[in-house]
């Protein structure tokens, strides 16, 4: 890609002469797109020039630079550059820049947004700084929303009159640098468009591997900038008054995120091997059976249900499993529904359970409505302590699950109950359930599951 040299002075881009003289590479601006579409005297024109100058000094290959712009007047700036350009939604510039940098860390990713973008996208600013992801963010901070008609923004000074603060602004202006500093990103700086040394600052920011912010105080000549009569001394006075000084205010040393991410995941990452099941057959079940395991948090209901489904599949049946538990997983009910069937299972709901296993009061409460309506030949296997609370036309089978589990070992109540059910219902051979436990669980856990099932068989 070759672009003719372009003389900045002809379009009035305010770049300090000293910095120009250091540059010898061609411009990163597209001459055919100029002049800039900003209002005459708008500070964005200066920022555009400083950035071009910084790029010229860095002599980065154009196709390895991405300029990501936000919405607002500043958001149109990308079209003047001869680099990759991504013009995204209002406030989200950092998100696209983050995706680009994560996907290809070799790219130099420069994001530009207004103070409006910084306000609406504040959460992204905080996160990018916390991650220390290697993007350079230039905030063209002109203290108002230029594009939409000079409304107040998160950096509008107190008392300032704007179209949406007709009697003066009551909201304290945000200090972007101090807001991000506790996260210790790589580089935090503040300057303004009338100052000197912005190009040096931008060069350092772009060269810094981690997250770099340049809060560039700016002039919206059409709106608040004129009202506040902002010029070099007025902006410097504002900086003094607000105690928001110019300069490179922080340099951090935390590792850059995309590199750190790759190093960490390269070292630790490995795919989870699939848990493949051997289908050996062996079930003689000839009809669909709906089973509900109704217990409480901490009873390992879900994994027991998964073993039932797994064993059913291994024995040649079809199976579905659905779990229900409150979002607060360590308390309340845990109810799993398993359907096993020799045929395809279309409907995965269980309205009239064939088998219900009740191991806790919380679980019983969840299935109580269905049990009152179930058919008379439904079997309800219930821990003997809860038997009196079950209201149902079905056949209640009280058994000492909890007591047995206490004897067998920790967390065995569900396997004990399943053992009892298998003894009476013969859904599939017990040895297949044991094989399922060995296939799915760690050895010690599988052994205790098997001990539980065997104790349960005796109850049956």
């Amino acid at each position, binding site marked *: 890609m070759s672009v003719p040299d372009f003389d900045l002075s002809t379009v009035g881009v305010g770049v300090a002469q000293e910095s120009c003289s250091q540059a010898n590479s061609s411009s990163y601006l597209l001459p055919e797109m100029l002049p800039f579409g900003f209002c005459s005297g708008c500070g964005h024109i200066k920022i555009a020039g400083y950035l071009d100058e910084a790029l010229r000094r860095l002599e980065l290959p154009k196709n390895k630079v991405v300029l990501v712009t936000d919405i607002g007047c500043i958001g149109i700036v990308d079209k003047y550059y001869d680099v990759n350009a991504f013009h995204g939604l209002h406030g989200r510039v950092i998100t696209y820049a983050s995706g680009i940098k994560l996907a290809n860390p070799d790219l130099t990713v420069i994001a530009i947004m207004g103070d409006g973008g910084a306000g609406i996208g504040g959460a992204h600013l905080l996160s990018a700084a916390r991650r220390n992801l290697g993007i350079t963010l230039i905030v063209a901070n002109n203290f108002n929303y230029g594009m939409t008609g000079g409304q107040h923004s998160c950096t509008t000074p107190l008392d300032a009159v704007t179209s949406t603060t007709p009697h003066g602004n009551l909201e304290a202006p945000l200090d972007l640098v101090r807001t991000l500093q506790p996260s210790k990103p790589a580089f935090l700086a503040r300057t303004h468009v009338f100052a000197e040394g912005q190009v040096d600052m931008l060069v350092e920011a772009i060269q810094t591997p981690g997250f770099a912010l340049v809060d560039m105080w700016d002039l919206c000549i059409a709106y608040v900038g004129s009202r506040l009569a902002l010029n070099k001394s007025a902006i410097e006075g504002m900086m003094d008054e607000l105690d928001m000084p110019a300069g490179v205010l922080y340099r951090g040393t935390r590792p850059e995120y995309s590199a750190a991410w790759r190093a960490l995941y390269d070292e630790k990452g490995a795919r989870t091997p699939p848990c493949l099941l051997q289908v050996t057959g062996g079930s003689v079940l000839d009809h669909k059976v709906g089973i509900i395991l109704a217990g409480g948090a901490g009873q390992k209901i879900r994994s027991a249900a*998964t073993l039932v489904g797994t064993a059913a599949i291994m024995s040649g049946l079809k199976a579905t499993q659905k779990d229900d538990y409150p979002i607060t997983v360590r308390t309340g009910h845990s109810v799993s529904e398993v359907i096993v069937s020799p045929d395809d299972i279309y409907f*995965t709901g269980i309205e009239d359970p064939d088998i219900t296993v009740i191991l806790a009061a919380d679980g019983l409460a969840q299935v109580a409505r269905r049990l009152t309506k179930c058919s008379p030949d439904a079997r309800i296997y219930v821990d003997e302590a809860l038997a009196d609370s079950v209201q149902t036309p079905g056949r209640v089978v009280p058994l000492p699950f909890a007591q047995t589990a206490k004897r067998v070992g920790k967390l065995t109540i569900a396997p004990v109950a399943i053992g009892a059910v298998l003894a009476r219902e013969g859904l599939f051979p017990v040895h297949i359930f044991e094989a399922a436990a060995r296939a799915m669980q760690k050895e010690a856990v599988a052994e205790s599951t098997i001990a539980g099932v065997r104790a349960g068989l005796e109850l049956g």
Partner: protein
Amino acid sequence: MIEFIEGNDAVVRGAIDAGCRFFAGYPITPASSILVSMMRELPPVGGIAIQGEDEMASIGMCIGAAMTGLKAMTATSGPGVSLYSENVGLAIMGETPLVIVNVQRQGPSTGSATKGADGDILFMRWVTSGGFPMIILSPENVQDCYTLTVAAFNFAERYRAPVFLASQREVGLTREAFNYEHAWAEAPTPLPRPVAAPDCVYEPHACPTPDHVSPMSPIGGPHLVRYTTSTHDQRAYLTGDPDVIEHMTNHYRRKILDHAEEMGIYEYDPQRGADTLIIAYGVCARSARGAVKMVREKGGKVSLLVLKTIYPMQRRVIKEAVAEVSRVVVPEMNMGQYVWEIRAMAPGKDTIAINRMSTTLISPEEIIAKGGLL
């Protein structure tokens, strides 16, 4: 090879096999397990996975990564789709391939986080301002979760568009036997991203005819790439020229609608002499299959059309199927959404909506009773 896994797990397997190499998501029930699995499974195959600070960040990162050359996916549920809305528009405008999994839950608002519904069908269809066609696929079981995820990536790449996988809790979190051989046999061959020749003059949105989709070039590759949220010409420069704008808006529309049949995934099971047709998608298709089996076993007659591609609408097959009957039954786990699309295509037919939004499934018996099938 068989595993006993949930629909969401199959989505993860499908995505990785389809070549997904970037994932960003924000936790939300019942979609969180996709994020959690992607964090573990994607890095070992050379991909990137990250939890965004919110849904806007998650989809924004995906769009950035997709334009840098990676196949990208995100996953959420209804509240997250609300927050994706503006960025789905960006993906349409910027012609960004992107797969969005919506594991629907009962809404509106926070609704029932752990309960299923198909309440977002029209929401996904009209998800963003401006109103452009969307591609939406709806799985009914764990195999579909794999197959349709692969298809979703292919459509996203082929048409350079965001594609929704309209899953829901009753599919995403239901565990079933997943058969790898069947999955590999059923799923389409993953389409590598078409890329522009290095020596061409690259125009990001080149479309000599409105339905033409041109190859992409990754940001950081041989060409300078431009991308913009604003109304633009084929070079991605802002434009106010009504002729150019008309061409581009036709392009976003026609590249999808003119190719609707290429995206048709459905199962049509007509029965000779049947006067009633059930049209179903998602988990309701399972109950519909159950109902059809019961009706036929009892000597009744009924036809079935299961739509996996719900958008773009499969007009030809729907018209053909509807023409054969006088009654159409549409069961949906919402208050009646897709049925309006069917009604518009079935003038003069008796169209019966069977709806339920009580967090419980519509049963085959309910379809038979309310549909007057026996």
